[in-house]
């Protein structure tokens, strides 16, 4: 072997061994290091300052900050965190850099508005974000829809929701559903039919699987609430007729002339407790329930999404 060949062999071996050693060491170092969070990296909070430093490449910076926002929310949501302190500043930076970045408004509001752990629990900031979006994109009717949605679902401010939907109707090319929603909000805002209409439309018009799953979970919860309300009324009627509570769901079904025992959206029969309460068999399988839960029930910290969209 010549000297040059010997050098080549030794250098190649060194290169391979050093590369492998670096990779293995980094894995060990990552295990013992605390995770760096976006909190540590948000040194510059000022959207205007970031805009200046982007040297005119605002669109690219906006994409980077939107990706950071998604990663920030996703990581904290996955880790069951209850605070999202940097979420609103990240969204403000993103939308200042690119006021036409529609996903930042649509998804940003759905990250900000819901209560923890589903979101940041900041519906007022979500509303500010949507209003900023509307100011810069006055011909985008979907922003009005999303804003009305926040007023309806998070703040239960049906009057405001109706006003916003009405404003959206004026936008050229707006979905005719907005007119229906405006009327529903004005008249029967609190009823399940309106809620079902909203969530059904959300499911039909969105292609994102997370949004569709969320819509399905709400529709399931609405069905359970409706079933429990109807069954509870049936128990009351039974009691008024007979002077006692029904002994079982079968007796109740027979008394009400129902074809079969009522079942929940998962096909499991509802329970009738000795105290005459109607409950679901497994409340953990349903997110966003308001009825049919046993007394003192605490829902899980992280909602469980089942894929019912297929």
């Amino acid at each position: 072997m010549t000297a040059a060949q010997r050098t080549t062999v030794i250098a190649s071996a060194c290169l391979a061994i050093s590369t492998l050693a670096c990779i293995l060491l980094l894995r060990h170092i990552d295990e013992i290091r605390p995770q760096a969070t976006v909190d540590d990296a948000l040194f510059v909070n000022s959207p205007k300052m970031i805009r200046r430093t982007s040297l005119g490449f605002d669109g690219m910076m906006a994409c980077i900050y939107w990706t950071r926002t998604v990663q920030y929310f996703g990581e904290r949501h996955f880790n069951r965190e209850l605070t999202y302190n940097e979420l609103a500043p990240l969204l403000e930076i993103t939308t200042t850099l690119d006021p036409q970045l529609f996903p930042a408004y649509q998804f940003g509001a759905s990250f900000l508005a819901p209560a923890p752990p589903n979101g940041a629990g900041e519906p007022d900031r979500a509303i500010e974000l949507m209003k900023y979006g509307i100011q810069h994109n006055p011909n985008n009717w979907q922003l009005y829809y999303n804003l009305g949605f926040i007023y309806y679902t998070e703040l239960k401010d049906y009057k405001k929701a109706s006003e916003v939907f009405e404003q959206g109707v004026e936008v050229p090319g707006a979905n005719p559903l907005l007119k229906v929603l405006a009327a529903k909000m004005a008249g029967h805002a609190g009823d399940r039919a309106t809620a079902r209409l909203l969530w059904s439309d959300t499911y039909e018009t969105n292609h994102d699987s997370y949004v569709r799953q969320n819509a399905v979970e709400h529709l399931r919860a609405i069905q359970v609430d409706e079933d429990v309300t109807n069954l509870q009324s049936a128990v009351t009627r039974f009691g008024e007729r007979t002077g006692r509570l029904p002994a079982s769901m079968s007796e109740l079904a027979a008394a009400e002339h129902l074809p079969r025992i009522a079942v929940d959206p998962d096909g499991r029969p509802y329970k009738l407790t000795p105290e005459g309460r109607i409950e679901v068999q497994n409340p953990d399988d349903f997110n966003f329930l308001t009825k049919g839960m046993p007394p003192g029930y605490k829902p899980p910290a992280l909602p469980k999404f089942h894929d019912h969209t297929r």
Partner: protein
Amino acid sequence: MSPRMLYIAFNTFREAVRDRVLYNLIAFALLLSGAAIFVGQISIHIERLVVVNLGLTAVSLFGIVIAIFIGIGLVSKEIEKRTLYTVLSRPVRRWEFIVGKFLGLAGTLIVNTFFMAIGVFGALLYVAHKFSAPDALILVALYFIILEFLIICSLALLFSSFSSPLLSAVFAFSLFVIGSFADDLRGFAALTHGATRWLATAAAYLVPNFSALNVISAVAHQQPLRSQLILQNTLYALFYTAMVLSAAVLIFERRNLK
């Protein structure tokens, strides 16, 4: 256009290729294909936006870096290697030398941009699966980027004609940064009074207006661009380039090369 100028231009292009300038296309291709493949997994609903924004930003930044770092050495390297004396001892006028160098560098950047444009459209086809009519606006953005390169090349050449490479790089890059804030500079000038106002206004009009040539965000959102803007930006870039090249020629004509 004299054949001597074209020969100098072609030689400048050949030198740039020999300097492996076009290897930056590999880095560009890797960056863009990586972004196209991975962005959908780490973000929501911005795949097309990222490809267009990242693609055009990379075309612009890579090109500006190449324009500055090659442009600053166009004259000074020839002086250092003493090849300039050989060239000028032929019947080559000093202004032909300057213009020829400019054309060579501009040509290198146009070729570079052409290949990068193929990459951008390829990545766009990958994420969007088909082209739509508004995607043609990307060509306008690329055209404006080429106009930016013409201005930057002329500036780099201007500084190279009388300054050292290091200072030329600093001046050229500084003008690029200031030119990105040209709109803000004019706004600032409007707020001042007296002599400051005159000076600020003069500076605002003298620095190159790169913000007018940057339509990347608008194109990414498929917003239409007025044909009047295209025409006026073209004329502005050509006149500005002519202005800077004229200054470079005036300085170089009088420069003592001994």
